[in-house]
């Protein structure tokens, strides 16, 4: 299992957003390069656990 840091970058893309709650909130369905198995917050950073990348 690898831990991935969610941050600004150019490596992945976000799918089309869909409107929610009178257009105030948007959900972007992100295709991660591997199945997302967990999210942890470590020292204030959000880390996405995804298996099978390496």
């Amino acid at each position: 299992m690898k831990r991935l840091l969610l941050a600004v970058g150019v490596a992945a893309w976000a799918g089309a957003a869909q409107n929610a709650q009178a257009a105030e909130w948007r959900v972007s369905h992100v295709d991660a390069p591997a199945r997302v198995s967990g999210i942890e917050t470590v020292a204030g950073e959000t880390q996405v656990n995804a298996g099978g990348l390496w």
Partner: protein
Amino acid sequence: MLTGERISLTFVDVAAQPRPPDGALPDAKVTTGKDDIARAWLAEPTTRYDHGILGNKIEAGSLVIETRDGKRQTVRLKDDAVFEDLEPRLADLDRDGHDEIVVVKSYLKRGSSLAVIAERRGKYEIVAEAPPLGQPHPWLDPAGIADFTGGGTIGIALVRQPHVIGSLELWSWRDGALGKTAELPDIANHIAGTRAIDMAALADFDGDGIADIVAPSLDRSRLRVVSFAPKPREIASVPLPAKAVTNLGLVAESSGPPAIAVGLADGSLAVIRRAL
């Protein structure tokens, strides 16, 4: 941080977390403090509680507190209870400059309760407990600690029985006792049998300067953003493309409230953002 309309992710290999201290609960999270408590963790694994809501039937029989001077104290439970939790939470509940510790204590015959541990005459001990849920196995999961009303009182938000009831309750510790002050229905912050106990997050989502709570609905098909200020209310209910199955993560935006990241049952990642 997220900027602009386009969401992008960088995937970075991060160093493994340090090995937990000797005697710690397997998969225990070591909580670090900024004040008189340096570190705290759950310890003395025991199988005396036949429940397994956190993925195994190994719970903690004690809590270890390491103070800033390096000394350690242990708060050990009697055989009729365990700490059914993965991490102690540090917060200065009474604003006296000293952290208290909030943890889930489960009685083998009476179910879970919320416990507050504080220093008394140089010794850490349990100083308050909420009434246990009444029978073996009903459990609760803390969702966050903050001033949720804006009135200056630090509250403890928890979800009572997040798998079957899903009641988000606000508790406060005043005059030595824990009391429930508000509640909202239809919230889940845990999936039975998993170690993901942080399916809720805190931030000011509506811009009123007061902490709000985001967590899945009881069926985990939506993310609900709720507030206790000025009274219990829903700020938003956002349908998800698939059910939420992971902890929530917050990602700073260049302006406005943070985005919310959550893993979904289809293996993908959803990022929820408030349009400004």
